[in-house]
């Protein structure tokens, strides 16, 4: 059970004078239950890639397999795929449209053809899961704060009970507490519900704190793929492609250069704290 991306190329406006390659020979294996961070500067192909994973875009060449079935096979049930691979777009709250939050979240599962009882139950569970307080269930989503709206939008995808959840910059525009809340929510979906998560993010600190594996895209190719430690070891190459490592990784590099006996493979604040305390002989 997994997603396999096999030699995928995607060319926008193929066969026209405007043709531009967005994905070039992308190969990935995404096993069940991983928490993946997908990073890359604007225009690196991240969004093009994630739209392939739930069949919104078709590869110009190459295949994508979901649980060993080619999703672009004419006989493949794409509607079913989209329920199983949920995609939360950037600023998903712009897609809220119903008169109240509960109805908005019902929309997805209702279209799966479930009975009223079933889809209402799912919507209720999803809203509970994202931590929206009961008092807002029957309020217009437009009267909520930015962070709350985003939760409702995520609940809309959750109610489809996906096995894989892809989120495109779910924290953009939120304040620091709002960012933390959303990331903790996503982390819970991964640890409690066992979902496979693909998190597209521009915050290296967030990615380093939460994910098991980082995939770095650059100019349509997979540039790095590995554990946060391995990937951020290449901080100089990351800078060249418009990215960076978390601030603490730089700190450790600089401390090392000053003769501190610290491990530079540090990507989170807690690891940095432990390393520094150790180097100072305080633990």
């Amino acid at each position, binding site marked *: 059970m997994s997603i396999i991306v096999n030699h995928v190329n995607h060319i926008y406006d193929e066969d026209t004078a405007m043709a531009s390659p967005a994905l070039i020979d992308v190969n990935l294996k995404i096993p069940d239950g991983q928490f993946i961070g997908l990073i*890359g*500067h*604007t*225009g690196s192909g991240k969004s093009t890639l994630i739209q392939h994973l739930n069949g919104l875009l078709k590869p110009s060449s190459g295949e994508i397999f979901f649980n060993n079935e080619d999703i672009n096979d004419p006989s493949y049930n794409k509607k079913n795929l989209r329920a199983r691979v949920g995609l939360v777009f950037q600023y998903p709250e712009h897609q809220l449209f119903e008169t109240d939050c509960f109805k908005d979240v019902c929309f997805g599962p209702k279209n799966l053809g479930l009975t009223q009882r079933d889809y209402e139950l799912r919507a209720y569970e999803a809203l509970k899961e994202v931590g929206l307080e009961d008092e807002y269930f029957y309020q217009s989503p437009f009267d909520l*704060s*930015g*962070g709350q709206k985003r939760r409702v939008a995520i609940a809309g995808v959750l109610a489809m009970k996906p096995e894989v959840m892809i989120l495109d910059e779910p924290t*953009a*525009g*939120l*304040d*620091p*507490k*709002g*960012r933390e809340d959303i990331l903790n929510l996503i982390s819970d979906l991964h640890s409690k519900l066992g979902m496979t998560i693909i998190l597209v993010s*521009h915050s*290296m*600190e967030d990615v380093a704190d939460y994910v098991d594996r980082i995939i770095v895209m650059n100019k349509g190719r997979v540039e790095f793929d590995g554990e946060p430690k391995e990937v951020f070891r290449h901080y100089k190459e990351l800078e060249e492609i*418009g*990215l*960076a490592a*978390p*601030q*603490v990784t*730089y*700190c450790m590099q*600089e*401390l090392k250069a*000053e003769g*501190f006996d610290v491990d530079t493979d540090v990507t989170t*604040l807690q690891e*940095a*704290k432990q390393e*520094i*305390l150790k180097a*100072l002989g*305080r633990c």
Partner: protein
Amino acid sequence: MKSSKISTVMGKMIDTQKLVFEYIRRDEEGNVEGITRAVDGVDLKVEQGQFIAILGHNGSGKSTLAKHFNALLYPTEGEVYVDSYNTEDDDHLWDIRQEAGMVFQNPDNQIIGQVVEEDVGFGPENMGIPTEEIWERVDEALKAVRMDKYRKASPNHLSGGQKQRVSIAGVIAMHPKCIIMDEPTAMLDPNGRREVIRAARALNQVEGITIILITHYMEEVVDADKVFVMDKGSVVMEGTPREIFAQVDKLKELRLGVPQVTLLAHELRQAGVPLPDAILTRKELVEALKKCR
């Protein structure tokens, strides 16, 4: 009509006096359903040439406040002076809009031209500037944000950071004294964020333009002259970045944070490492730790 210039506020770029703003929600028949006080008694002074940052969680009133700085909103109570013009003085509305330019969050909502230079020239053209001078201004503005290479490009083919810099150039071409940036980096990647912040800092230091930066990224604030923190429509903290970021716990209560190095230093202090208050940069942390060996 209130007098447009008063002597007591000369020299201030922005001066708000007991500013209150209320959003009034109405139902379909136009009856008042509710009133939300978005800005509640703000006295905020910004001197010419300062680099100011405004922090605050979503819904704290930052953007509503900022919209008063170039007369997009008018106070429900109190007054706002922009370079000594009262914003409610219609005679000077265009002076205010020209002197205090605004850059918003989403680059795609601000660009109207088909070609970069056309977009940048839109502001001065509407001010009735002679054609030749418009081109000079466009030149100069694009150079100031390092986008002169792209003057003939289509904005559609630019990255987010580049588009934001074109938006800033559009404001610069109007020769403002002050630029208000409302979360200009929220939608950008790390590179784009750096470009925009670098441009803002250069404009402040080289051209002496007053910058008011509203942001959720604490790292962008460390070089500001002064930081204001808003909560529930009021200014609840005010000071230098060092004074503000020394209060890690208070900022957390306000749904905010501190830069990652500052937090690391804070946690090390709590673990007993004798570090000074409010370390803002990696360099400071390394230097301070050298003394602890």
